[in-house]
């Protein structure tokens, strides 16, 4: 009796489940849930994989930097250092003349960033909001500066700067940035132009009715609304100046009194032994270690890390604003 009862119960339950399963509304809902799940799993795998590819070399470099120099080709040490040590970093910072070079590079990048923002924002605003006859023809000039590579101009610029007695001075970089011919200034002008174009005309008109002049409109109404573009351009200008090797070496900006990280790194990478010898970094370590080519490679690696680390730390702080700024930049208009 109880057995059939139970069997009936199961049967009823099973039928219910079956009906439930075949009901079109629920079927669709289930289908959607499965689809969503598949998409999010796929997305997770893809994004996780790519993030891994991006972060992997840097993490590896950091771990390698923290190995003791004696362990450089210890086959037992792959990931986690056996003996944690800051010795590699110490030697690399001697090679790079780190504190001083860091200060000089930061100063150069910061001033050039401010000048770049100023010159390109003004030009971008003029090209988008203060149109006059021929301004579109002038804008072709901006496109030309984007398209023509710096190599085509380098010699003439170099000779010109010799005449101006600017070669070997940081002011050569400032002059280029201040006059809107710095690293990729053309792209920045393009970004600012399309951004200002996207701002509503009413903003300008209401400012004008309230009695603001052109400059006042630009300074107190348009610019505060352009924060997204300012953050984007500022970040790129700073980073590209920091990483620049081309103009630095063309104008011979880096020298003993004004060392720059990129130039020191390039120099060191070309001949690590010489760099160690000249800077005296070699005295910090025994001969059995510096005669190992792997150790020299390791120091090169650590030097590269030391150059990138300040940028990474800075990015950690501005990252949120930068990512948010994308939402509002309207770069492409």
């Amino acid at each position, binding site marked *: 009796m109880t057995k059939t009862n139970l069997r009936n119960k199961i049967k009823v339950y099973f039928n219910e489940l079956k009906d439930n399963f075949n009901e079109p509304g629920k079927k669709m809902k289930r289908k959607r849930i499965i689809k969503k799940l598949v998409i999010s799993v796929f997305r997770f795998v893809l994004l996780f994989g790519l993030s891994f590819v991006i972060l992997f070399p840097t993490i590896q470099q950091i771990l390698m930097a923290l190995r003791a120099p004696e362990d450089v080709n210890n086959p037992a040490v792959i990931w986690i250092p056996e003996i944690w040590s800051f010795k590699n970093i110490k030697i690399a910072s001697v090679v790079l003349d780190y504190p001083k070079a860091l200060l000089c590079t930061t100063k150069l990048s910061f001033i050039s960033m401010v000048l770049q923002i100023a010159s390109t924002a003004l030009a971008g605003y003029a090209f988008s909001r203060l149109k006059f006859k021929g301004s579109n023809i002038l804008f072709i000039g901006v496109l030309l500066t984007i398209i023509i590579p*710096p190599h085509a101009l380098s010699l003439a610029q170099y000779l010109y700067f010799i005449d101006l007695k600017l070669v070997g001075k940081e002011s050569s970089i400032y002059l280029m940035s201040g006059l809107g011919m710095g690293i990729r200034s053309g792209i920045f002008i393009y970004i600012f132009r399309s951004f200002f174009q996207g701002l509503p005309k009413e903003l300008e008109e209401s400012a004008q009715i309230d009695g603001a002049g052109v400059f006042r409109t630009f300074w107190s109404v348009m610019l505060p609304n352009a924060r997204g573009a300012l953050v984007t351009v500022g970040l790129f200008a700073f980073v590209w100046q920091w990483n620049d090797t081309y103009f630095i070496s063309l104008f011979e900006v880096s020298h003993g009194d004004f060392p720059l990280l990129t130039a020191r790194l390039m120099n060191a990478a070309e001949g690590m032994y010489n760099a160690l010898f000249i800077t005296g970094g070699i005295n910090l370590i025994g001969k059995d270690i510096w005669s190992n080519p792997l150790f020299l490679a390791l120091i090169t690696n650590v030097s590269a890390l030391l150059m990138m680390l300040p940028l990474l730390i800075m990015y950690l702080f501005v990252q949120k604003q930068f990512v948010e700024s994308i939402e509002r930049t309207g770069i492409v208009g």
Partner: protein
Amino acid sequence: MSEKVKKERKFKSYETQKKIWAFIFLAPWLLGFVGLFMIPMLTSFRYSFYHLLSTVDEGLVLTWVGFDNYYNALQVEAIGNTFFKAELLATLSEVAINILVIIIFSLFIAVILNAEFKGRAIVRAIFFIPVILNSTAVVFALSSGEAMSGILSGDAGLGKVFDLENYLLRAGLTGNMVGFINYLISRIYSILALAGVPILLFLASIQSIPRHLYEAAEIEGSTQYEMFWLITLPNVKPHLLTVAIFILIDTFISSPLSRYIDGLRRTQWGLRAAMSWLYVVVVALILIILLAINKIFKWGESHYD
């Protein structure tokens, strides 16, 4: 009446004021454009037809050599063991692959990063790291450490994590295909580095698409796939050209070709100028091709117009 005149005069003065300020705003750029761009450009164009010799007492001595520099660049001169034309061809094929691969890749990533999901902010932040760390000096330093890659490939290199090549071959793909996939994977970091700004551009472009289009599509019951092809892609299309031009310029600037030109000795300025101008001509040709494609397929126009 007088009020109206006054207003009109005020408006007119605003217009003239605008012109004056336009000039003031553009002054630094104009100065730079003429002094630091146009004049050096013309000078370097002139130099490409000369042989330059830097002497102590007479300064720069120019001798007219006609098209010799161009001929040398294309036929004779070699640095290390490569020729200029070989580097040029290599860069051209790189550009062709890059434009296609990066446009597809960055559009794909931009669409994914635009969707709502947990941890989106972190992933977005991570994706722009390669743009920040993309430095010639770092690349140079790491590539010169050949010994280091020896350590890495031995035990912890990415390629050793799983044997992809073998797996793909067993899956029935042809050798060429596997080679191409392998090539892309080995270049994933440089692709990511170049894709940062295109992702940014696409993301901004996708975000400017009005939300109600997607809402309407959802109510009509269209799938994500249809939404991509019928809403996202047509709206992104006008910006494809911008992205393509950016990739073109970026690939050329970071290509071995640039390093080849920079590698010339400082005395060979004429040759260097000639090579730079050949480079400009090639970039201009590709640009014209891109513009022509743009005209033919009407990329530049949104399909809602």
